């Protein structure tokens, strides 16, 4: 193994990091929003939307992320063209984000839903009986109690998301893995180990940092003193 080479190529990866981070950021943001909407639909049992939501989650959890990426990349333009919308000009990054939002959103809603349901009915009733509106109840009572339960799962979701970005190079996104792929094909079959070790370290670092961040958030929400169990 060539240590010198390892350190030589590391900067290449770090410079490709921004794309990965942008993809992660937007995918997580919109994925979270989507999962909140989907959870809402599932809990409220709305006529057409709830079965659709179940279908969506079932599909997104039953099929591999790589397949979903390919389906979106090849299929979405076709689907939208039926409605007269042309998205062929979209960047590969955009398709990546759409895929990750849908995939991540499905996973997150299965974290949010049990967390919401874990807050006992009595908390709702107490707020209702005092005349809180749904929104007031949600914001001041339910969500603060739901967050500590959901956070570990949400944190895991973020880690899965970070790791899922490793497949984007298959459709040609030049992120960390894309750079790796290019380096490997241009080096005539040597130094692959160094390349992927470098990639591994980049991912390891990003994962480690985000894990620390989530743990910090968990500490903050701990102050709601729910230690004695939510279903006491």
């Amino acid at each position, binding site marked *: 193994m060539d240590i010198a080479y390892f350190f030589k190529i590391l900067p290449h990866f770090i410079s490709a990091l921004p794309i990965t981070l942008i993809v992660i950021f937007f995918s997580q943001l919109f994925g979270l929003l989507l999962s909140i909407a989907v959870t809402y639909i599932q809990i409220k049992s709305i006529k057409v939307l709830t079965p659709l939501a179940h279908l969506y989650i079932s599909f997104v959890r039953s099929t591999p992320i790589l397949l979903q990426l390919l389906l979106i990349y090849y299929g979405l333009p076709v689907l939208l063209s039926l409605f007269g919308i042309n998205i062929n000009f979209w960047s590969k990054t955009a398709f990546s984000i759409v895929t990750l939002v849908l995939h991540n959103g499905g996973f997150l809603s299965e974290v949010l839903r049990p967390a919401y349901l874990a807050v006992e009915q*009595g*908390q709702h*009733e*107490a*707020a*209702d*009986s*005092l*005349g*809180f*509106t749904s929104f*007031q109840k949600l914001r*001041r*009572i339910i969500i*603060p*109690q739901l967050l500590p339960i959901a956070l570990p799962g949400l944190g895991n979701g973020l880690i899965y998301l970070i790791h899922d970005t490793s497949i984007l190079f298959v459709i040609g996104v030049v992120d960390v893995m894309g750079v790796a792929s290019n380096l490997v094909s241009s080096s005539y079959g040597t130094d692959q180990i160094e390349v992927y070790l470098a990639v591994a370290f980049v991912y390891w670092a990003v994962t480690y940092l985000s894990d620390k961040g989530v743990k910090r958030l968990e500490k903050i929400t701990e102050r*709601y*003193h*729910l*230690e*004695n169990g*939510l279903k*006491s």
Partner: protein
Amino acid sequence: MLALKNIRKSFNGTDVLKGISLKVNEGDVVTLIGPSGTGKTTLLRCVNFLEKPDEGEVQFSNFQLNYSHAKKKEILRLRRKSAMVFQQYHLFKNKTAIENVMEAQIVVQKKTKKEAYENSLELLNKVGLVEKKDYYPSQLSGGQQQRISIARALAIKPEILLFDEPTSALDPELVGEVLNVIDQIARTGATILLVTHEMSFAQSISTKVVFMDHGEIVEEGPPSQIFNHSNRLRTKEFLKHFTNNYQKTTSL
């Protein structure tokens, strides 16, 4: 002041409430007694729309609501007329004792934090728990939590207080402190609708006792009538299960 008219409700084909009408005047302390599962709690929960009857009307002094056509705004208005104390207390777990008492004042009544704080301090003092004001529910005993939930109910100055078996979930040694508080409140002239199994307590604080069985009101009247001079067989059958301890005990 509160009138329930012809409340009907069925669950899975069984009639839980078979056309109940009940009146509670201002300052009344009305107690619902009866065997378990006969609709007492269900009736109570209709008053603040935690249960939705299939039919019926509820009337407050300046407000009326028909259950079959209730709209969101009306339900909100209805709920803001009363406050409920639950069997399982249901204090907000993410708020301290005093925050629990303050919460509805700030959110529903739009008071300032300062105003709500001072008011809540006074109420906690009344129920004897001002030194626990910064404690979270998980750090308090059942009896303490229940007393705080009573303070929380009083905080919004409701037209009627609803008590749903307030002491049924408490350890026996904690029951007395809660009953004391309710007794004090009754003496101040508050309007109360109470569901309980504590018969001696019911007898001592009620102005009217209502005996329900199988979704109907069997008998209603002053405590002396129900407990001592009832001429309804069902009432007497039910009360037989409770020991003859109808005198006001000094422990209360």
